[in-house]
C-alpha cells in the first residue's frame, strides 16, 4: 500500500489499496489520528469500499462489534473512545433533510463523524473535514484520495506518509 503526497491548493495524499483488508487498515490508520469533533466525508460508487473504510475508523476508536450499514437508519451511533456517528446519505435527496436530521449538531459534537455519500450535498463541502474519495481501479484495487480541509486534518494526512511530513515543497508542484 503506497501513499503519495500531492498539493494542488489543498493538502492531499493518495493511497492505493489492493484488498478490503488494506482499505480497512487505511481507515484504521486515519482513525488512530482523529480527535473529538473530527469529520470524515466519504465518497465513492456503490461497492467502492466506503463502509469498509468506516469500519477501520470504528476499529481505531476501539469499537469491536459489528459496524452495520447505516443505509436503513441513515445514522448509526456506536460507542467507542468517543462516540462514532456513522451517517449514510444514500437515500437522502433533499438538503433540508440534513437540517431535519440535526446533522450540524453531530458535526459540531464531541464524537467522530463519518459521512457516506457526502458528495451528494454541496452544503457539506464547506465543513472543516477530511474528504476521502474512493475510486475503483479494478476488482481488488482502489485509489483513495484524502484531502484535508483545515490544519488538524493536514496533520492526519501527513502522518500517513513514511516521513510523517507533508509540505508544499515535497509535493512536486
Amino acid at each position: 500500500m503506497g501513499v503519495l503526497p500531492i498539493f494542488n491548493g489543498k493538502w492531499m495524499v493518495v493511497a492505493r489499496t489492493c484488498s478490503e483488508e488494506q482499505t480497512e487498515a487505511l481507515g484504521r490508520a486515519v482513525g488512530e489520528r482523529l480527535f473529538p469533533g473530527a469529520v470524515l466525508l466519504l465518497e465513492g460508487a456503490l461497492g467502492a469500499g466506503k463502509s469498509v473504510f468506516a469500519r477501520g475508523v470504528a476499529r481505531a476508536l476501539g469499537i469491536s462489534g459489528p459496524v452495520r450499514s447505516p443505509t436503513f437508519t441513515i445514522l448509526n451511533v456506536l460507542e467507542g473512545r468517543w462516540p462514532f456517528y456513522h451517517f449514510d446519505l444514500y437515500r437522502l435527496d433533499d438538503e433540508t433533510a440534513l437540517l431535519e436530521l440535526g446533522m450540524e449538531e453531530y458535526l459540531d459534537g464531541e464524537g467522530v463523524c463519518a459521512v457516506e455519500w457526502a458528495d451528494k450535498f454541496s452544503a457539506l463541502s464547506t465543513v472543516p473535514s477530511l474528504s476521502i474519495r474512493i475510486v475503483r481501479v479494478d476488482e481488488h484495487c482502489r485509489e483513495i484520495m484524502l484531502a484535508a480541509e483545515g490544519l488538524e486534518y493536514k496533520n492526519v494526512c501527513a502522518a500517513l506518509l513514511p516521513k510523517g511530513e507533508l509540505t508544499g515543497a515535497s509535493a512536486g508542484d
Partner: protein
Amino acid sequence: MSTMLILGLETSCDETAAAVVADGREILSNVVASQATVHQKYGGVVPEIASRRHLETINAVIDQALAEAGIGFADLAAFAVTYGPGLVGALLIGVSTAKTLAYAAGKPLLAVNHVDAHVAANYLEHEVTFPAVCLVASGGHTSLLYLRRRGEAELLGATRDDAAGEAFDKIARILQLGYPGGPAVEREAVRGNPEAYLFPRAKALQDGNFDFSFSGLKSSVINTVHNLRQHGEPLSTADVAASFQAAVVDILVEKTALAADKTAAQTVLLSGGVAANTLLRRRLAEVLSAADRLLLCPRPELCTDNAAMVACAGYDLYRQKVFAGLDLNASPGLDIFQQ
C-alpha cells in the same frame, strides 16, 4: 370473559400504520398508509419526507382503524407503539402520538421492538409450537431469533453489515431495475439462469455462527457487472438477478436450517418484507420438511410493516406487565437484545 383491545402504531420507516387487535390474536382493523409510491420516484425511502408524511397521516390512519374496528378510544385497554429500530424522525411521530393517547386515556403504554413485532406477526395467523426459530429479513434487518415461548425471544445472530433487503435494493439499482428492489429483482430473475454466475456464499456461511454478511456478495455482483460493462460484453440482467437471488436465498436458508437443527426447534417462522420472496419460501419449506420441521409465514400484508403485529407484540408485553413510562423515547439503533 371480556376481550382486551390494543391499538398498535407503527411509523419506523415508510408506512404509517394503525391497527386494533383483540386478545393478541384477532385483527379488528389493520390500516396501512404506504409511502412506496412517493419513494418510488426517488429510488428509496426519503426520511425527511417520511416523517412529514407520518405526521400528516397518522391521525387519519388512527381514526380509520378505530372506525373499521367499530370502537372508540374508551374501549381500548392499552396503546402499543414501535419505538425502535428505525429512522429517528419517523419513530418519534408514533412514539409521541402513543404517549399522548396513553396519557389522555389513562391506559398503559407498551414499547414494542420492531423486530419482535415481525416475529409476532406469525401469532396473528398461526398456533405456533415451541421452541421455534424465526428469520426476520427486510430492508433494515436480517436477524435470527430463538423463541422459547411466545414473547420470549433470544437473538441468535444478525447481519454484520448489510440487511438482505438492502442488498436487493442496491443490486436493483446497479441493474437499473427500479424500487423497491426485492420484487424488481425477483421479477427479473424469473427469466434468468440462477447458475449463470457463481456468486460467493462461503464467506457469509463460514465460522458456524448465526450472523449474516451480504456486503461481500454485493461487491462480487457489482464487480461482475462492472467487468462485463467495461469489456463491452453482453450483460444479461436476468441472469445476474437470478444468480444473485439464488445466493441470498442459499445463505438465508442454510443459516436458518442450521439454527433450527442446533436449537431443536419444532417450528420455523419467517417474517419481514423479504419473506415475500417466492424462491426463499419454497427452498426453506423444502429443506425444513426434509427434517420434519414446519415452516410458517404470515400472509404478505402481515410480513411487511404493519401495526397489527405491533399490537400483537404489545399484547405479550401487557400480559407480562411490562409497561413503558411516559418518558419513553425513540430508540433508532435498538437491538433485539437491548430490551
